[in-house]
C-alpha cells in the first residue's frame, strides 16, 4: 500500500492506494444488498477498475427476516489489473445483521475488515441465529478489524423530518452502507445520485431520503474516527474503447438479439420462467422494438414447441430454461434434430438433481445437453466462459444453428447469469453476420427438403409462404433427399450417420483449441469449460507468478470438440479437468480421446475459489517434479 500526499480538494483523511479489493455486502433478503452491490459495481466500473461480481441469494422470495437462510449477499472484486473472479474471500465484509455475520464469517479470512450494523445486534436477533453470546464481545471477532456502526440509527437520524415513516426510512439503510463504502474506496457519487433520482422518479420523498442516507454514510466515513484512512484503486489497464458492466444473462440476451439482427431473422422466444434463466425472458420481452417476439408459454414443452414452430416459419427460434426445463424439452429437441431446423436452447444451469438448489450454480447438465436424448440425436453445445463472453457465445450458437440447420445448446450457469464484469462494447455495425440462405426458388429438378449442402451437410430452409416449395416434415425417419417417410433399414442407417456427420463437421468451422502455455514447458494442462474459466485462470496466474509452469485450455465447444483437441491433450503429461460436477467433461474427454484426464470436482453450488484450484494444480505439479523419485 502506498500513501500519497493529498491534493487540496481531497478528503481530510489520508488515502491509501491498493491494488485489489474484495468486498462482500451481506444482509437480510429485504435489505437491498443486491442493489447496493450493483450500485457499488457501477461506480467502480466507471472508475476504470476491472471487476467481477457474484450475487449470492436464497431461493425464497423473502426468507424469514434475521435468519441465516434469509441472508442475501453480493460480492465483488475490483482491481487495477485484470480481475478474473469475484474473489475467493472478502477483504471487507459489510454485515447488516447477526445472521449475515454468522453466515459469512466462515468464508471471511482472519484479518479482514468487517463493518457491522450494531443496531441489529439485539439479544433477540442474536438468539434467532443461535449466537448465545454477542460475537462482538466474546472474542469471536478478535482477529478481524471490526467497525461497529449504528447504521440503522444513523439512517433514521439523517432522515428525521424527511416525511417518511420509520419503516420506510429504515429501508434506506442500505444507501447509508453504500455511502460509507463509497467514501472508503473513493468511488464517484454522481452515478448513484442519478440512479436514485431515476429509480424513484415517481416518489420524490423516497428519492430524497435515499440520497440523504447515502450522503450520511459518506459523511460518516469522512468525519468519524472509526475509519482512519480511505483507499483508492487505480484503473486497470484495459484495451481502448467504450465499456459497460454487464451480467451474463444480459450479455446472452443481447448476443441473441444482435445475432438475429445480423442474420436478418426475427427472434422468437418461447419460454417458461425458471430460475436462473427468467431474466433472459424479462430482458427480451422489453426488446420488441427489435422485432423480438416473446411468448410465455404454459410450460417448457410449449415454450420450445412454439420456438420450433417459429423456426419452421423462418424466425430464429429460441427457448430459455434451466436443467429441469431442459428435461421437459428433451422430446422436442429430438424432433428438432429430426426436422433439422435452427433452434437455440439456452440452459442456465443450476444445482441439481431435480429441483435441487435453484439459485446456486453448477455444471452438471453437460451430459444432458450432449447425450440426453432418445435415439442417436446429436446436438452441438456451446458454453460461454465469463459473463461478458455470453455475448460472443450466443452469437456463435446462432451461427451454428443457422448455418447447419440444427438445434444448438448454449450452456450458461447461475454464476455467469448473475455475475458481471466490464465489457468492451463491440461496434454494432461490424458484428459478424450469418446468412440464413433461405431457399426461395424451385431448384431445377425439383425441391428436395432433405438434400444437403456438400460442405456443411445442411439441408435447405424453405419457409411457408414460398410458392412451389410446399413440403411436409416430421419426426418419423425420412428418406435421404426427399424427406418422405422411410422405414428402409439402409436409409435409416444413412440418415443417422448423416446427422452425426453434419454435427461432427461443425468442428471444421470452429477455431482450434488454443493453449495458453507461455513457457512452453508445462507438463500439466488444465482443461476447463464454461464459468470455471475465471477461477482457473486466476489460479494459473497465481502459480505462474510464483514461477510454476502450467498450461491452460478452455473449451467453448463441447460438441463437437475442436478438431485438434486430442492432439492438444496428448501433448501434456497430465490433464486436469476442474468441473462443478462429478466429472462430466472428464468422461467425454476420456471416452473420446482416451486420455487419462484427472478430474477436480466440487458440487457445492458455488464457483471454485482460485485457492482450491491452486492446491489441486500444485498437487499435480508436485507429482511432476518428484517423478521418478518415489
Amino acid at each position, binding site marked *: 500500500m502506498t500513501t500519497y500526499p493529498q491534493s487540496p480538494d481531497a478528503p481530510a483523511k489520508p488515502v491509501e492506494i491498493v491494488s485489489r479489493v474484495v468486498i462482500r455486502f451481506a444482509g437480510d433478503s429485504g435489505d437491498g444488498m443486491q442493489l447496493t452491490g450493483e450500485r457499488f459495481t457501477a461506480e467502480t466500473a*466507471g472508475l476504470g477498475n476491472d471487476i467481477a461480481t457474484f450475487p449470492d441469494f436464497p431461493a425464497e422470495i423473502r426468507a424469514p427476516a434475521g435468519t441465516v437462510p434469509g441472508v442475501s449477499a453480493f460480492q465483488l472484486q475490483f482491481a487495477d489489473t485484470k480481475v478474473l473472479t469475484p474473489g475467493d474471500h472478502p477483504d471487507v465484509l459489510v454485515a447488516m445483521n447477526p445472521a449475515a455475520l454468522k453466515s459469512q464469517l466462515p468464508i471471511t479470512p482472519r484479518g479482514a475488515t468487517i463493518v457491522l450494523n450494531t443496531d441489529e445486534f439485539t439479544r433477540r436477533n442474536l438468539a434467532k441465529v443461535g449466537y448465545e453470546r454477542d460475537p462482538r464481545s466474546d472474542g469471536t471477532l478478535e482477529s478481524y478489524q471490526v467497525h461497529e456502526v449504528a447504521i440503522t440509527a444513523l439512517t433514521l437520524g439523517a432522515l428525521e423530518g424527511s416525511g417518511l415513516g420509520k419503516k420506510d426510512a429504515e429501508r434506506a439503510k442500505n444507501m447509508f452502507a453504500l455511502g460509507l463504502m463509497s467514501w472508503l474506496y473513493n468511488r464517484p457519487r454522481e*452515478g448513484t445520485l442519478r440512479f436514485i433520482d431515476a429509480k424513484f422518479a415517481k416518489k420524490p420523498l423516497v428519492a430524497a431520503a435515499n440520497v440523504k442516507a447515502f450522503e450520511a454514510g459518506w459523511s460518516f466515513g469522512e468525519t468519524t474516527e472509526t475509519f482512519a484512512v480511505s483507499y483508492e484503486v487505480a484503473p486497470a489497464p484495459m484495451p*481502448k474503447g467504450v465499456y459497460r458492466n454487464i451480467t451474463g444473462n444480459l450479455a446472452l440476451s443481447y448476443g441473441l438479439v444482435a445475432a438475429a439482427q445480423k442474420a436478418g431473422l426475427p427472434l422468437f422466444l*418461447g419460454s417458461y420462467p425458471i430460475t436462473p434463466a427468467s431474466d433472459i425472458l424479462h430482458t427480451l420481452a422489453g426488446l*420488441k422494438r427489435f422485432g423480438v417476439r416473446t411468448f410465455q408459454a404454459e410450460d417448457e414443452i410449449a415454450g420450445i414447441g412454439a420456438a420450433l414452430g417459429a423456426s419452421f*416459419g423462418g424466425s430464429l427460434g429460441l427457448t430459455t430454461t434451466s436443467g429441469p426445463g431442459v428435461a421437459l424439452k428433451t422430446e422436442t429437441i429430438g424432433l428438432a434434430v429430426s426436422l433439422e431446423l435452427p433452434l437455440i436452447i439456452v440452459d442456465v444451469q443450476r444445482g441439481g438433481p431435480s429441483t435441487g438448489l435453484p439459485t446456486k450454480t453448477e455444471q452438471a447438465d453437460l451430459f444432458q445437453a450432449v447425450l440426453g436424448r432418445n435415439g442417436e440425436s446429436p446436438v452441438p453445445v456451446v458454453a460461454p466462459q465469463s459473463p461478458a463472453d455470453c455475448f460472443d457465445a450466443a452469437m456463435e450458437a446462432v451461427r451454428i444453428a443457422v448455418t447447419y440447420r440444427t438445434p444448438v445448446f448454449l450452456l450458461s450457469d447461475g454464476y455467469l447469469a448473475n455475475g458481471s464484469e466490464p465489457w468492451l462494447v463491440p461496434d454494432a455495425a461490424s458484428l459478424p453476420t450469418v446468412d440464413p440462405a433461405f431457399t426461395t426458388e424451385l431448384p431445377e429438378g425439383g425441391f428436395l427438403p432433405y438434400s444437403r449442402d456438400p460442405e456443411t451437410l445442411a439441408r435447405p430452409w424453405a419457409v411457408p*409462404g414460398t410458392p412451389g416449395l410446399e413440403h*411436409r416434415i*416430421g419426426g418419423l425417419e425420412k428418406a435421404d433427399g426427399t424427406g418422405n417417410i422411410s422405414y428402409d433399414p439402409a436409409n435409416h442407417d444413412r440418415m443417422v450417420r448423416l446427422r452425426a456427420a453434419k454435427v461432427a463437421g461443425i468442428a471444421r468451422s470452429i477455431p482450434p483449441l488454443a493453449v495458453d502455455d507461455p513457457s512452453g514447458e508445462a507438463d500439466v494442462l488444465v482443461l476447463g469449460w464454461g464459468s470455471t474459466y475465471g477461477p482457473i485462470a486466476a489460479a494459473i496466474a497465481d502459480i505462474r507468478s510464483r514461477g510454476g509452469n502450467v498450461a491452460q485450455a478452455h473449451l467453448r465447444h463441447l460438441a463437437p470438440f475442436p478438431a485438434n483437441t486430442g492432439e492438444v491433450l496428448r501433448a501434456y503429461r497430465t490433464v486436469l479437468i476442474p468441473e462443478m460436477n462429478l466429472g462430466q467433461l472428464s468422461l467425454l474427454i476420456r471416452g473420446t480421446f482416451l486420455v487419462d484426464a484427472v478430474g477436480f470436482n466440487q458440487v457445492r453450488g458455488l464457483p471454485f475459489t482460485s485457492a482450491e484450484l491452486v492446491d489441486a494444480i500444485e498437487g499435480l505439479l508436485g507429482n511432476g517434479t518428484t517423478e521418478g523419485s518415489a
Partner: protein
Amino acid sequence: MTVDVALTKKDFTSDQEVRWCPGCGDYAILSAVQAFLPELAIPREDIVFISGIGCSSRFPYYVDTYGMHSIHGRAPAIASGLALSRPDLKVFVVTGDGDGLSIGGNHLLHALRRNVNITILLFNNRIYGLTKGQYSPTSEQGKITKSTPMGSLDNPFNPLSLVLGAEATFVARSIDSDRKHLTSVLREAATHQGSSFVEIYQNCNIFNDGAFDVLKDADTRDAATIRLEHGEPLQSATQSVIRAADGSLELVDGLRDDAVRHDAHAEDPSYAFGLSRLTTPTPIGVFRSVERPTYDRLMAEQLETARAAASDDADGMLGALLSGTDTWTVA
C-alpha cells in the same frame, strides 16, 4: 393472401400414398378438407397443417401445402409459435382425441384461451388408433379395450364442454361422413378470427367400429342429431329443446314452437356449455362463434408500437442497446 388462379382439390393432394386402413373415416375428412381448401382462395404456400402423432396426425402428409407431423400432443404449441410469428399464414392443426385431449390437452386449452389464430380439427374416434386400440379420454366409461380388459374406469371428457370451459371463441362439431355439413363447419371455422375448435366424429373401423353409426345411419340420424343453425330452433327430427323453468335446456318430444332458437354468437359461453351437455340427440354444427382480439394481432400491435417509437437505423439502435446508459471509456 388471395389467389387469382382458382385452385382445385387436386392442387391440395400431395404425392404421398395415403396409409390409413381401408374404410377409415379419416379418408372422408381428408377428401372434404382437400375439396374445401380451394374455397379459401389462399395460395397453397400460405397454408400450413401441423399435427401431432396418431392415425389422424398423418393428415399433413397428404395435403399439398406446407406441413409438419410433429410429436404427440404438441401441435397446438408448435402451431402457436408459427401463427404468432407469421400472421400472414393460415395455420391448421390436426389432432386426435388422444393427441389433443390426453397428452396434448393442456396445449390445446391454452391455445384456445389465448385465441391464437389457428384452426384446430380434432378427429374424435374415441380410441387410440395408431397404438392399436387403447381407450382414450373420450371413450365411454366401462369400455373394454386392450388396456382395460375389465372395462375402463375413467369418466370421459366432453370435448366441447372442456373447450368452452377454456374460453374458446369458436366451437363446433361435425361428422366424417357428412361431407356437406363438415364442409360448412370447416368454412366457418377456417374463416373465424382466432382459435377455432372443430370436433369431428370419426369412425375407426378397426378398433372402434360403428361408434357414431346412430348419427350416420339413414334411419336413425335425423332423430339422433340436432343440426345447429344460428337463429333456428334446436330440434331433431322428433324432439325439441326448450328452456326449463330452472333455466336449463330440456329435451321434449315433438317439434315445438317454443323450441330455443340457436344463438351461436352469445357472449356468455353458458348457453353453448348447456348445449354441449346434450348428448342424445347430439347437436352438430357451430355451438359458439364470438369475436375476441386474437393473440397474434395483439402481439403484432405491441411490436408495431415498440417499433414505431424506435429508430430506423438498425445498427445504431443495436449499438445503443449494447452500450446501455452506464458506460465509461478507456482511451
